[in-house]
């Protein structure tokens, strides 16, 4: 394999892996903050117990998200130094802003929240977790601004003298229409992930307790958590569908090749059908694609709200790109991956929604279900929702190949700012070096994935603790004055 392929594999491995944990962090932190808010407001201890329970799962997940995020800040320079030289003037800015505006807040206030249970007044402590929750979402804004610029460069000119892209309007970069579509889609997807996570684990426990006879605890602690998770799933789920539709329409306009490839649509046609099942050869040959089941006109409708609108196919788009950007390049992304990742994203997300529907039905009018299939459905929906996010990003990133910076096709777009992935890779890094780093990251990430899963699993099956160091609102140690030296020797409420 060439250094290019290896570098792409490494980026894919490290980034898809990182993004297993990110959506859960983005969505679960606000949910934990919400649970703690319920506790502070209602003084109902159920919410404190749930805060502590889901808080621990959040922290286990947070750690690996932070650890794998460090790599992201540096691997552009390591493996993609030519890309970094070409785009640094534009692309570096949102990364630096992310660190300054989001990472500092996130890390500092997370430390305050973890260690501050008995050191901070209750409301300030609550404000700390909200600060973390806001910062994680803000972080998504900046990194998506960077990614959206790669998908659709704006606010930039090509400087022929330096041969680099240069920023001319930060406002346009931070209000890129691509970003305005990608951000709500990514955030609502993160909330669906976290809602599913909370609902699924709580549902599993609810069924377990009901079946062992402890209906009271199931009703008192887990049922409210199931409902919280389900409400988040449904509200965010509607959001993810609407924003996804919005984003797809935008992509037909901005990256028609990505969408044509996602449909396996070879020839341009009026009233393009939406393919449900297609087979093809693996040579990325468009002519080999056979559609077995399709819904007539649906692709045209998704693109334009008109069932008979013309849609450009892969062949015509390849010809157009060749005329505009030069020949000798295959401008078609990997067809099977683009086609299937798009469908798997939608399918996995829709599959997880079954949990929400089932939960709403089974818990209607105060019921506390002990149905075994419900508990199994909960367990199945968990990996599905994580996979939906992964497939979504695999689709987005593989679908824009062979570009790393996709040309902006709009008449008002920027001129000359585009870059083929092949031209972005580091020229001084040998394939051996990339192999070494790829093997090292893959092995380490593999080990960490196992440990992460074991820890999450172990803490999930432990369930909510009755009271940990008796942290009930009635316990005076929970709001003692931090400067009160009378109990200076008392153990910390939390320590590593």
């Amino acid at each position, binding site marked *: 394999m060439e250094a290019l392929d290896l570098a792409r594999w490494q980026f894919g491995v490290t980034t898809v892996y990182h993004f297993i944990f990110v959506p859960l962090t983005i969505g679960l932190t606000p949910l934990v903050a919400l649970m703690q808010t319920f506790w502070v407001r209602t003084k109902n201890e159920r919410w404190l117990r749930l805060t502590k329970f889901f808080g621990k799962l959040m922290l286990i997940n947070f750690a690996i998200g932070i*650890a*794998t995020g460090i790599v992201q800040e*540096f691997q552009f320079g390591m493996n993609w130094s030519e890309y970094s*030289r070409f785009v640094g003037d534009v692309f570096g800015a949102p990364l*630096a802003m992310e660190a300054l*505006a989001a990472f500092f807040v996130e890390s500092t206030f997370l430390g305050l929240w973890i260690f501050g249970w008995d050191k901070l007044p209750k409301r300030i402590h609550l404000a700390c977790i909200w600060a973390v929750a806001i910062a994680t979402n803000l972080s998504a804004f900046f990194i998506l601004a960077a990614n959206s610029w790669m998908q659709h460069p704006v606010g930039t000119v090509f400087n022929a003298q330096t041969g*680099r892209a240069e920023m001319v309007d930060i406002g346009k970069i931070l209000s890129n229409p691509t970003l305005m579509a990608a951000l709500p889609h990514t955030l609502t997807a993160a909330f669906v992930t976290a809602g599913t996570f909370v609902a699924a684990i709580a549902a599993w426990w609810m069924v377990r307790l009901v079946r062992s006879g402890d209906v009271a605890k199931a009703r008192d602690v887990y049922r409210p958590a199931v409902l919280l998770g389900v409400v988040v799933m449904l509200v965010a789920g509607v959001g993810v569908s609407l924003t996804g539709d919005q984003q797809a329409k935008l992509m037909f306009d901005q990256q028609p090749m990505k969408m044509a490839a996602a449909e396996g649509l070879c020839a341009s046609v009026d009233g393009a059908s939406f393919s449900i099942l297609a087979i093809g050869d693996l040579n990325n040959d468009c002519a080999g694609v056979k559609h077995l089941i399709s819904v007539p006109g649906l692709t045209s409708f998704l693109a334009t709200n008109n069932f008979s609108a013309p849609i450009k196919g892969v062949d015509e788009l390849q010809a157009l790109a060749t005329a505009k950007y030069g020949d000798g390049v295959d401008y078609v992304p990997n067809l099977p991956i683009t086609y299937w990742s798009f469908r798997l994203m939608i399918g996995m997300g829709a599959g997880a929604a079954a949990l929400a529907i089932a939960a709403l039905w089974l818990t209607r009018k105060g019921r506390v279900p002990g149905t075994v299939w419900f508990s199994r459905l909960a367990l199945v929906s968990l990996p599905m929702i994580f996979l939906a996010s992964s497939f979504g990003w695999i689709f987005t990133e593989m679908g824009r190949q062979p570009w790393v910076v996709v040309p902006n096709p709009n008449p008002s777009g920027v001129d000359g700012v585009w870059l083929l992935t092949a031209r972005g890779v580091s020229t001084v890094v040998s394939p051996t070096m990339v192999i070494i780093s790829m093997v090292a990251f893959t092995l380490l990430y593999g080990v960490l994935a196992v440990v992460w899963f074991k*820890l999450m699993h172990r803490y999930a099956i432990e369930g909510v*603790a009755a009271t940990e160091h008796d942290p009930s609102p009635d316990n005076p140690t929970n709001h003692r004055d931090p400067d009160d030296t009378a109990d*200076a020797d008392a153990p910390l409420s939390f320590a590593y």
Partner: protein
Amino acid sequence: MELSTIWFLLIAVLWTGYLVLEGFDFGVGMLLPVLGRRDKDRRVMINTIGPVWDGNEVWLLTAGGATFAAFPEWYATMFSGFYLALLLILLALIVRVVAFEWRGKINDDAWRRRSDWALIIGSWVPAVLWGVAFANLVRGVELDASHQYVGGFFALLNPFALLGGAMTALVFLTHGAIFLALKSGGDVRDRAGALAGRLAPVTLVVAAAWAVWAQIAYSVTWTWAAVVVAAASLVATVLTTRARREGWAFVASAVTILAAVVLIFGSLYPDVVPAFDTANSLTVTNASSSHYTLTVMTWVAAVLVPFVLLYQAWTYWVFRKRVFATHIPDHVGLTFVRPAVPVGAPATPAAGSVGSDEGPQA
């Protein structure tokens, strides 16, 4: 002053923040096997930095992001050129992060031992390699006409760079020992103070040797001032640690690191990556971003950095008290395997979390 020069200074400030703050985090991790004889001692040590290490590490991410934004060529050349060194640093930082957070999650001796090793290695590797990397920058590297690093990996392991690695390792060891003496209580404090007193003179000798070498071989006249300040603050470190003036010792140690950064960045300027063939050097001018980008980033930094300093300072205020062994609660982590508790029975925190610090685990 040119905006690119301001950003060169700001990046020096970010590295100072990183090396002063994470410097003692590294030192604490490096000293775990030396000062942490019992598990409880190790937990005292880890908990002195527990609430702050993550925020300290963000100074590195910010330095990286700021370099990317303000000097893309510097970012591209340095990280592709120092590839394997950076890879090792990244791997070390990854295991260190998860070890901090996950160590206490499982109540098991073997688990804790492994986490401790991850912390120790994860602290030693970057502590040495940052010194090697910066020394190579000061010394200059082989760049071709398009500013690409072409020197290979082993050229980075020259005597000057290796001495630089030894220097940063010693500086962080001393800095960490002083921090522990300042922030812990009881047994750990005593031993950390004594160790700092023994480490400081060694650090003085090695750091002075490196600084004088750097100054004579690679730097400009005015950075003699930084060398003198570094030497003076190191002498002050030796004296204050001997006198067990922990607060002043920490200030002196932090000033040493500041002076080292001034020496390093002062010797670089106006280059950011000096080349053996000076015509190929990356400079503050030819590596920098456009004026517009630097203007935008200057506003962003000017607005946000004061807040960062403010809330990070507040964190240190909140957690200002010394950590004593008596503050460390019993292990609250779960055991690997869930003990057989009948479902529905009131789960007690004792289930799965029993265990003394020293005693064998069931």
